[in-house]
């Protein structure tokens, strides 16, 4: 018999799955010409209820379903982050779907199902479970990337994401197979216990292959090639989701697998990946003319900053908590930036080049101001979340004597500020190219943007509560 407490430990996932099916049932029940906003509202309610369920779940920590998943502070943290990301993406999709003429029921359904996968990725401690959860989140995002059916580049983006994603999954699986061969188990705790006895050679290769697979998912160099093309072709709200949600979840997996198993021999691999990601991301972004591509390269760079926190091994708690804080701050500012981009893009995603943003400061002061907050946060200016995120990461790096990596990171931050500032200059200093007025921000998307602004500023002004929570959950992760 399965104790009833186990079901509470997957309550958010149950709520999300039920609402995902519900929106797909509601869609055909509505008439051809009915307003489909109700579908979006139902899925937003679903996400809110899942958030509530997460707080109930947080009161019942422990293992569930025969050691398949574990609810601890770490899992709760990533549940909250992922569900908030999904909620913001749902809210910003209300108007977008109508403008782009995208079918709604399946769209919201897949977002909610994908969120189930991402949530479970943060709580799974059995690699079988982890694998199925990763696949649910991946397959939903592959399809969501192809939802702009009228645009050929959307289908291509979906195809590219799919092929490289499955390629990465195969590497991840071979890593699991070797780990199973080396330790005789697929449970994170059992693997940790086996590795403590001594490390077979095979375990090194297993870790390397698993990191190749997860490196693809988080778009860390040298596995970042798919990112710009996929982000360019996919619908903007979906990019907001897939540049933050699956990434946050994949970082959670990396943290749990690397630190949870005390896996050996990944120091230099992550070192090089971090340095490469920062450099390639920032230099790539310099030459872009499309805002979505620019943000794609910036997301590679940010994955690099995040990886710096991983190798701060001297002080694991500090490193893990810095990585968790960075995930949350990056989610807030990046989702916000894409909310603005997806609103500004208009029908058929016409306005996505950097020149289109010329004179936005005059044409729509509020929209420009909101985007400014996010860009400043992405640069890492104080009183925004991005500042403390970078600060904690580099503090952890310095306290672990990673001087060179810190230097590379700081130089990169300076280079990175150039392309964000270029967009700001474009908005405020250049004459607008068209006098066409920017459509006013609808309530739901405005709510999503406001939420992201509040989150970004909150993390920038009062970082302590979130950081404290991250440190406590890091303590449960690193025994």
């Amino acid at each position, binding site marked *: 018999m399965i104790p009833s407490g186990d079901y509470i430990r997957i309550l958010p996932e149950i709520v999300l799955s039920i609402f995902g099916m519900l929106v797909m049932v509601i869609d055909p029940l509505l008439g051809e010409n009915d307003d489909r906003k109700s579908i979006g509202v139902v899925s937003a309610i679903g996400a809110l209820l899942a958030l509530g369920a997460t707080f109930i779940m947080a009161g019942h920590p422990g293992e569930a379903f025969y050691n398949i998943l574990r609810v601890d502070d770490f899992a709760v943290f990533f549940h909250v982050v992922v569900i908030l990301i999904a909620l913001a993406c749902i809210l910003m999709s209300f108007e977008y779907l109508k403008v782009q003429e995208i079918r709604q029921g399946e769209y919201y359904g897949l977002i909610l199902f994908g969120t189930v996968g991402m949530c479970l990725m943060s709580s799974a401690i059995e*690699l*079988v479970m982890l*694998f*199925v959860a990763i*696949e649910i989140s991946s*397959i939903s995002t*592959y*399809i969501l990337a*192809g939802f702009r*059916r009228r645009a*050929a580049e959307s*289908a*291509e983006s*979906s*195809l*590219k994401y*799919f*092929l490289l994603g*499955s*390629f990465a*999954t*195969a590497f991840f*699986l*071979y890593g*699991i*197979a*070797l780990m*199973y*061969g080396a330790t*005789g*188990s*697929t449970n994170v705790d059992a693997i940790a216990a086996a590795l403590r006895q001594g490390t077979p050679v095979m375990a090194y290769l297993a870790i390397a292959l698993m990191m190749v697979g997860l490196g693809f998912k988080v778009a860390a160099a040298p596995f970042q*090639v798919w990112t710009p*093309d996929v982000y360019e072709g996919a619908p903007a709200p979906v990019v907001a989701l897939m540049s933050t949600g699956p990434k946050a979840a994949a970082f959670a997996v990396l943290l749990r697998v690397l630190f949870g198993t005390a896996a050996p021999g990944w120091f230099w691999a992550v070192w090089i990946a971090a340095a490469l990601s920062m450099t390639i991301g920032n230099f790539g972004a310099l030459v872009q003319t499309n805002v979505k591509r620019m943000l794609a390269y910036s997301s590679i760079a940010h994955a690099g900053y995040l990886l710096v926190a991983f190798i701060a091994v001297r002080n694991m708690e500090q490193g893990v908590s810095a990585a968790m804080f960075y995930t949350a701050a990056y989610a807030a500012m990046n989702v916000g930036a894409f909310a603005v981009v997806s609103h500004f893009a208009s029908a058929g995603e016409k306005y996505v080049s950097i020149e289109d943003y010329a004179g936005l400061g005059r044409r729509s002061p509020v929209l420009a101001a909101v985007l400014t907050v996010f860009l400043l946060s992405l640069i890492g200016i104080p009183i925004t979340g991005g500042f403390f995120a970078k600060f904690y990461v580099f503090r952890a790096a310095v306290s672990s004597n990673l001087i060179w990596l810190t230097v590379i990171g700081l130089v990169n931050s300076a280079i990175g500020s150039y392309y964000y500032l270029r967009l700001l200059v474009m908005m405020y200093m250049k004459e607008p190219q068209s006098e066409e007025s920017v459509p006013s921000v609808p309530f739901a998307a405005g709510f999503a943007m406001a939420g992201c602004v509040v989150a970004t500023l909150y993390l920038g002004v009062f970082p302590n509560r979130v950081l404290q929570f991250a440190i406590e959950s890091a303590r449960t992760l690193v025994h």
Partner: protein
Amino acid sequence: MVPLSWYLLLSAFLFASGVAGFLIRRNIITIFMSIELMLNGVNLAFIAFATVRHSLNGNVFVFFVMVVAAAEAAVGLAIIIAVYRTRETLNVDRVNLLKL
């Protein structure tokens, strides 16, 4: 009897040839088949390890890999059809893909 490492070598060969196919082929369907080849390499490794370790967990894992492979095949082939409709080609260069 055949030593275990022969099975593992075979699995490594299947995996590596899948990687090779993925990297060098231009036809999308063949690229996709190369991924299936890689997954089969994984499955053989799992079964071989499970037999040596006398635990059936590896067999269960293979079961899940197959379920996922089926799901991926359905989705992937649907995406391929969608791309084919818009571009009328299955050549990755033509669909402007994998610009490395």
